[in-house]
Structures are given as C-alpha cells and as structure tokens.
C-alpha cells in the first residue's frame, strides 16, 4: 500500500488546482501509477477508494481500462460499499466492447437472487445500463421473477430493466408482455410509469403487441383522467401539476395506440380535450403536458375541432414569454402548416411577430413558417412584413428571405406592376443575396408586360441613378434602359402606384393603400425629364465602375449599343465608347465592342434591324401570365407543303447563320424576329439543355361515334427543337369515314409542317388506320399548344370538329 497515495477529496482538489493541462496530466499520471500498484498488490480495505479515484479521472477523459478487473472484484465482495462502487465502475468503464463485461453476469445473477433490496437494485441498475444482448438473454427470467416481488422498490427497477432488455433483445418481449396488464393496475407511481414505458417499448417494436395493447386504452384514459381531475399526492406533484412525467408518458402511449386507429382515437377524444383545458399553463410542467397533448392530437384520428384546439394551443405558446416554449411552438406549427393550413393561418400575425426574435433559431423558423403562410389573399401584407424583415435581418437569413419573397411574389402577384415593384425592392435591399435566375426572371417579366415598359424603365433608371453597386439590379436596369431607352426619354412619368413601405397597412382589393411613407433607398420615378446625355453618362459610369462585374459591364455595353438606334441625335459618344472598348482587357467585352464597331462601320444599314426590340422569351416557369397567354393565340391553320418566304429578315438570318435554311421557315409571316447577334443571346436565360430522349406516352385526343384520333410523339435526339407527331385515326364503327381532312395550328413562335396523309378514308370495323405526320419546330422551347380541325363524312353526315389538345406531355416541348 503506497503511503503517498491521495485521498479522493485531496486528489480532486489537486486536479482542480492545476493551472495547466500539463500539470493536471502530471498529477493524474502520478496517481494512476499508485492506483495501478494498489490494484496489483491487492488492498481489500481501500480498493473501493482507489476505484473511486480512478472513476473521477475517467470522467475527465483519461484512460482507465486497467480498473475493469478491479470492478469485478469489488462487485463480488460481500460489503455493500464495495459493491456500490464496483457496480458504478462497471457502468462507467465496461460496455459491450470490452471482453470483461460478460464476467459480471454471474455476479449480477447472484445479487439478483440475494433478497437484499439495495443489492438487487444495484444489480438491476448495472444490467440496464450496460447489459449486452447476451447478458440480457441470460438474466431475463431472473428479472421477470422480480416483477412480481412484493417490494415496489425492486419492482419499479425491474420493470425498467425489462425495457432495456427488450431494446437489446426484442424476442424477450414474449416474456415481458404478459405481466403488463396486471402491472397497469398498480397505484405506485414508479411502477406505473415504468409499466407504461414498457408497454410503449413493446408496441413500438411489434405490430402484434400494438394490436394487443389497444384494449388497455380505456384503462389508460381512466388513469390519466384521474390524475388530471383528481390530482395526486404532493410528493408526486411538480409545480402544481400531478405527476407530469406519468401524464406525458401515458399521452405518448395513447398516441401510439391511437395512430391510424379510428376506434381508439375516438375513445381518447374527450380525455384529450379535458387535459388540454384543465392543465395549468403558468409553469413549464403544465406546458410540457399540453405540448405532449398537442402532439398526440395531431397524430391520431382526432375530431376536427380537437385539431383546431391543438393549433390554438400552439398559437398561445407563441405568445409565451419563455423562449423554449415559443421554439417548440414554431417547430410544431411548421410540421402542421401543410395539413392544417387554415387553422395555422389564424395565428399568422403572431408568427410574423416572431420574425423579430433576437434568437436566430427562432427567427429562422418564424421565417420558414411565414413563407409557408403566404397565400393570394394576404400576399400584399405578408410581402410588406417580409421585406421589412429583409432590410434588417441577419445576413445568413437574407438569401432564404429574398428567394422566399420572390417565390411568393411569383405565385401570388395580384398585378404585374406590384410584381415588378416587389422584385425591384428585393433587388435594391438584398441584391447580392438573390439567386442567379432572379435577373432573367425579372427581365422576362418586364418584357412580357408591354404596358409597363415605360414605368419599369423609369423606375429602374431612378434606382440605378441612386446606386450602381447592386449587381442584379444594375443588370436588369441596364437591359431595360437598352431596350426601352426611347420610352425613358419620352415625357415625364405619370402618377405611379405609391410605394408601400413600412408596417402592414390596410389594403383594399384593388391594392390601393391608405397612407404612404417613403422607405429607405427607394424613390418614386424621376419627376423631371431625363436627358439623353444623362442616360449615356450613367451607362458609362456602370461600365467604368470597379464594382461592376464583367457580366454587368457586358449588359451595359450592349445597352449603350441598343440606344444608338433608340435615341435620336448623333451617336458619336456611343461610337467612341465602342472604339475604346475595342481594346479592353476583358476578352468578352473586347469581342462585343469590336463586333459593335463593325456594325457601325461596315454594316450600318443592318444596325437597326439587328438591334430591334427583343421578342418575348418564353421560359418553362410555373406562372404563365395572362398577357403572354393571349399573345400565343393560334396564328393560322396550315395545310400541305410550306411556302418559303424570303424576306429581308431571313436574309439576315442566313447571314447570321441561325437556322438550317429558308425551307424551314414558317408559313405564316414573321415575326421571325431577327435575334440580334449571338452576343445578345446569353443575356436571356434560355431554359435548360435538351433532355436525354425518353419515350413519350401516346395521347388519345378525340373520339366520336367510333372514330378515334391518337397522337404519338417523337423527339429525335440530334435536334432538340424538333418534335414529330404522328396522328393516327382509327374507326371501329360500322360506317366508313370519308373525305377525312386533319388540319393543325400552333402558336406563333412555333413552325409547323404537315406532311401528306396516308389517305382520306378511315375504313370501318377497325380497318387500316390513316396516319399523318406533323413536324413541329420549337426554337424557343415554348410550351406546346396544338389545335386540331377535323372535317369528314360519317354516316352520311358532314362533321366538323375544332378543338385544342389538352394534357400534352411536357416532354413534347421541354
């Protein structure tokens, strides 16, 4: 026995007094050496102290494996103190990975059958803390015996040990299932709690057990009701709530039993309402029970009124001063917002308040929830709140907030002007955080809203004049100025819709606002006339600015070029810029400048045509606004072979080598708007690359009195813009169909070619079907629309049918 070994308290004291990690290590290493020696030499009187020291050291993270065998020795000792520390050591040092752990099985077995409660408790404790599957199998029957022993002290521990054993060895459920029903009638809270936990574990592991235990639902309901309504002894109350732990555990079990089971759910409906209304909410304990009740209500087949009650409880939680409670409320509401949308909507104002929480985890969830609550009736108010939030929220939330606002605007925009304003505001406030496609989306949106071109370009001009640092904004503004520069200069702006800035104000259906307050960094459109020189100067500033990205400068350069045709007066200034940039370091800009220079010098006669206004670019987005739909109205019907039209435009196309050849040109007159030069193509975000070919399902489009029309589609892999449709007409009726003519029409941006049909008769009784091939070119990848006109004779009658084909698969045009 080494004399200089420290007492436990002293060791702890010394370790705490160590100033550095190294010092601490030194003390510990020294002491561990003593401990090792003591174990080796054997010191039955003091070994429990040595082990205690070792355990402390282990808790700090130092190795202590050499104490494992000592634990075994101490467990086997008859002295209680030894056993206690020995078992504690086993729990801390031994686990399934150590070979030594099996050796204590025997000790545990002996101690379990000893009959001394305290010792049995120790043994059970250790078993449930670190018992491996093997140990559990060996000792299952011992534990089962203890379930029925008279002493509640041992029984409650035995029940919980059974829980652990079932987790380790699910087959042991067979042993532990039968006693449960009886145990459920216990009055002792500890045993009851353990039993409910045990049943929960059994049910979670086996559907058969779940089925079996549904019959105890009434019993559970009764117990919980008694707890809530009658209360229990003081020693089991927490903050005035009767045994909240037991309540929560019962509620969890009820949840599992009632899930997907109509009958059980019904049995517990009243009880749940009772718990919800009778629980004291002033302290956390009560709220914990309420929370569990809400979770249960939402998971079982509860009545609608009960669900609303649950959502309202969560809504009240949102107003609680305790942050933790607000947190669980937000998290739960997020899970419910899809399934119980209208109930959650009622708490929208409170949710929006939570946006301003200083705690990041709360405000993030509030943001997610707020975005999920936006719908067409509250979009204006919500966007207002969210934009206010965007202005001051922490940087890591900005991207989500910005893209959330843009998405909501896209889905629910009440008017185009509002939409444009909203995007503009987002770009001004948080331009650097928006996604890449925001620029293309806004351009497309503005492009499609012809009546708003003047408004948009003026707003954008003002915004740009104020600040040229927000790149997405600058890019859109430059594009617009280039496209609509003429509108910018024409007169002053008319009265625009006043900007809505600040807290949610009252909104009428038409969107007129009561009261206006100017917001940060947003001005109404310039009241005075804009001069040409100003515009050019601004674009030049953008070009030269350090803050402008290469892409932005590209936009500015092209915009300047376009202005040479839009604005009157000489173009010397613009020419000058082009020649300067002809030797720019940036290869991209240089190329553009050189090409534009060429336009000025050698191809001036083509300049106007090249720089004409852009056509609307279709994109396969979720929202196709009304004006765009109208503009895609079917142009004309077509028949037989195409008639090529050689116009100035198509000559230009040849020059620029964009299409395969004039023979593919449309039958209808252009707009085949000349797309001005390759350099401008990448301004617009043309949608995705061609998809790998996959078979497109056939479509039945027409049926009348036995005559059926089917369409089959092919997208040849080499030509992504080409779609081949085969129209097949079959006739199962008794009479022939004669003089059959099929004509087709497509929107303006498409090109259609009908090849000659196989015949004009569809014989009766399922005779040889008639086929006809349609070739459709879709250079803009626009959504396909197809109208068919059929004329034929059938049963002695002339028939004419005109209809649009619905449900065209997206693979036909994407």
């Amino acid at each position: 026995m080494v004399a200089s070994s420290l007492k436990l308290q002293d060791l702890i004291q010394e370790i705490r007094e160590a100033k550095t990690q190294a010092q601490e290590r030194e003390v510990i290493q020294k002491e561990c050496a003593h401990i090792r020696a003591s174990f080796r030499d054997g010191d039955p009187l003091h070994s429990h102290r040595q082990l205690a020291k070792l355990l402390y050291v282990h808790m700090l993270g130092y190795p202590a494996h050499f104490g494992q065998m000592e634990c075994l020795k101490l467990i086997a000792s008859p002295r209680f103190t030894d056993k206690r520390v020995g078992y504690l050591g086993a729990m801390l040092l031994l686990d399934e990975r150590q070979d030594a752990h099996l050796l204590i099985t025997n000790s545990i077995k002996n101690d379990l059958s000893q009959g001394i409660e305290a010792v049995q408790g120790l043994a059970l404790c250790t078993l449930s803390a670190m018992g491996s599957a093997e140990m559990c199998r060996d000792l299952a029957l011992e534990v089962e015996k203890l379930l029925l022993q008279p002493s509640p002290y041992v029984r409650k521990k035995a029940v919980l040990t059974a829980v652990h054993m079932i987790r380790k060895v699910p087959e042991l459920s067979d042993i532990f299932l039968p006693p449960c029903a009886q145990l459920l009638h216990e009055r002792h809270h500890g045993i009851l709690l353990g039993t409910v936990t045990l049943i929960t574990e059994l049910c979670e592991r086996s559907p058969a057990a779940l089925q079996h235990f549904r019959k105890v639902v009434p019993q559970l309901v009764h117990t919980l009701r008694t707890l809530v309504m009658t209360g229990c002894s003081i020693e089991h109350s927490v903050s005035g709530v009767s045994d909240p732990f037991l309540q929560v555990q019962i509620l969890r079990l009820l949840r599992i039993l009632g899930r997907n089971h109509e009958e059980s759910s019904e049995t517990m409906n009243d009880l749940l309402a009772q718990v919800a209304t009778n629980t004291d909410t002033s302290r956390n304990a009560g709220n914990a029970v309420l929370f569990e009740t809400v979770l249960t209500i939402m998971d079982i087949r509860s009545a609608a009124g009960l669900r609303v009650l649950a959502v309202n409880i969560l809504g009240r939680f949102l107003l609680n001063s305790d942050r933790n409670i607000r947190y669980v409320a937000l998290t739960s509401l997020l899970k419910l917002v899809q399934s119980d949308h209208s109930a959650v909507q009622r708490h929208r104002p409170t949710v929006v308040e939570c946006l301003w929480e200083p705690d990041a985890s709360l405000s993030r969830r509030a943001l997610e929830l707020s975005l999920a609550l936006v719908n067409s009736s509250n979009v204006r108010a919500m966007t207002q709140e969210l934009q206010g939030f965007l202005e001051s929220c922490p940087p890591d939330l900005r991207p989500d907030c910005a893209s959330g606002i843009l998405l909501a605007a896209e889905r629910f925009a009440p008017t185009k002007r509002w939409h444009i304003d909203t995007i503009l505001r987002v770009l001004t406030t948080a331009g650097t955080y928006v996604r890449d496609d925001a620029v293309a989306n806004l351009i497309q949106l503005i492009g499609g809203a012809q009546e708003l071109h003047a408004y948009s370009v003026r707003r954008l001009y003002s915004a740009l004049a104020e600040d040229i640092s927000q790149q997405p904004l600058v890019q859109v503004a430059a594009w617009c100025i280039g496209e609509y520069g003429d509108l910018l200069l024409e007169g002053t702006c008319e009265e625009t819709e006043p900007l809505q800035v600040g807290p949610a104000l009252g909104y009428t259906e038409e969107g007129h606002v009561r009261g206006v307050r100017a917001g940060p960094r947003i001005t109404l459109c310039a009241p005075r006339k804009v001069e040409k020189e100003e515009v050019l100067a601004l674009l030049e500033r953008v070009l030269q600015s350090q803050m402008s990205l290469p892409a932005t400068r590209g936009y500015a350069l092209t915009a300047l070029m376009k202005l040479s045709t839009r604005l009157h007066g000489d173009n010397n200034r613009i020419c000058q810029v082009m020649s300067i940039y002809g030797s720019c370091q940036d290869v991209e800009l240089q190329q553009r400048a050189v090409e534009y220079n060429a336009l000025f010098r050698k191809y001036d006669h083509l300049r106007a045509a090249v720089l004409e206004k852009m056509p609307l670019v279709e994109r396969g987005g979720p929202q196709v606004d009304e004006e765009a739909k109208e503009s895609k109205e079917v142009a004309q019907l077509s028949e037989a072979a195409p008639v090529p039209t050689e116009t100035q435009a198509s000559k230009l196309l040849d020059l620029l080598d964009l299409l395969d050849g004039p023979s593919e040109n449309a039958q209808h007159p252009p707009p085949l708007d000349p797309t001005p030069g390759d350099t401008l193509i990448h301004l617009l975000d043309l949608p995705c690359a061609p998809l790998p070919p996959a078979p497109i399902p056939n479509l039945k489009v027409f049926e009348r009195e036995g005559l059926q029309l089917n369409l089959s589609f092919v997208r040849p892999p080499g030509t992504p813009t080409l779609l081949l449709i085969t129209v097949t007409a079959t006739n199962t009726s008794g009479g022939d169909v004669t003089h059959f003519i099929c004509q087709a029409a497509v929107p303006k941006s498409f090109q259609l070619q009908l090849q000659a049909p196989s015949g004009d008769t569809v014989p009766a009784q399922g005779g040889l079907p008639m086929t006809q091939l349609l070739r459709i070119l879709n250079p803009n990848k626009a959504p396909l629309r197809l109208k068919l006109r059929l004329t034929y004779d059938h049963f002695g009658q002339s028939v004419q049918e005109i209809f649009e084909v619905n449900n065209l698969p997206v693979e036909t045009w994407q």
Partner: protein
Amino acid sequence: MGCPIIRQIEEKITRELLQTILARKPKMCNLKIVYKRYASLYFSYAIEDQDNELITLEIVHLYVELLGKYFGSVCDPDTIFNFEKAYFILDEFLWGGEVQEISKKNVFKADLLQEEAETPRTVLEEIGLT
C-alpha cells in the same frame, strides 16, 4: 429515451458530448440536446427526435432539486467532491434514460437505506477521515 450527462465545466461538456455522440451506432436517430444552466453548472440531456423537450427540462430541474435537497445547495464543489453520490441519486431518479421515481421522499428513502447498511467504519472511510 434520454441520456443524462453531468459535467461541471463547459469545455468538458463538449468533450463528453462528443464522446457520447461518437459512441452511438449508425442507425440511431438524431439527437437533440436539452441543457439548463445553473450558475456555473451545466446539465445536458440528450433526447431523441420524437421526445418532448419541455418535459426534459422538468427532468433536469427535478434532478437539480434532488441534488439540492441532498447537499443543501447545489454548487460546483458539492457535486464534484461527491460525484459518486450524484450518480447514486441519479440511479434512483432515472433508469436507462427513463424516469423512474419522482417522489423525493422515495428517492432519499432508498439512499438512506443503503447508507444505513454501512458499518460506521466504512462511512468514515468513505468521507476520507481515516
């Protein structure tokens, strides 16, 4: 099912938590950590995804109350110098991560039971007086 961890100082919490988390097997579900701070003491409890966080706060608080009742007051030195006692009390309160007994009377009845089983000599030894 929860997992109680008693630690005194914040840096050490991280280490222990990491150890516990790394010790978990791949198929176990995600952990949530619920913790409560009492002056310089941190009590952390790891729970599963579907467990109720609010009741976990109650569990932590009840344990602190138990310690408080036993030691007279809960502060750093008490729990550290008597860490085995803290474990023994814990073993009467929680069991395999589940709540076992919430009556303070019953918890201490058991502990005292065990202490009475000691002979005087071993008690003295235990508190380091011989």
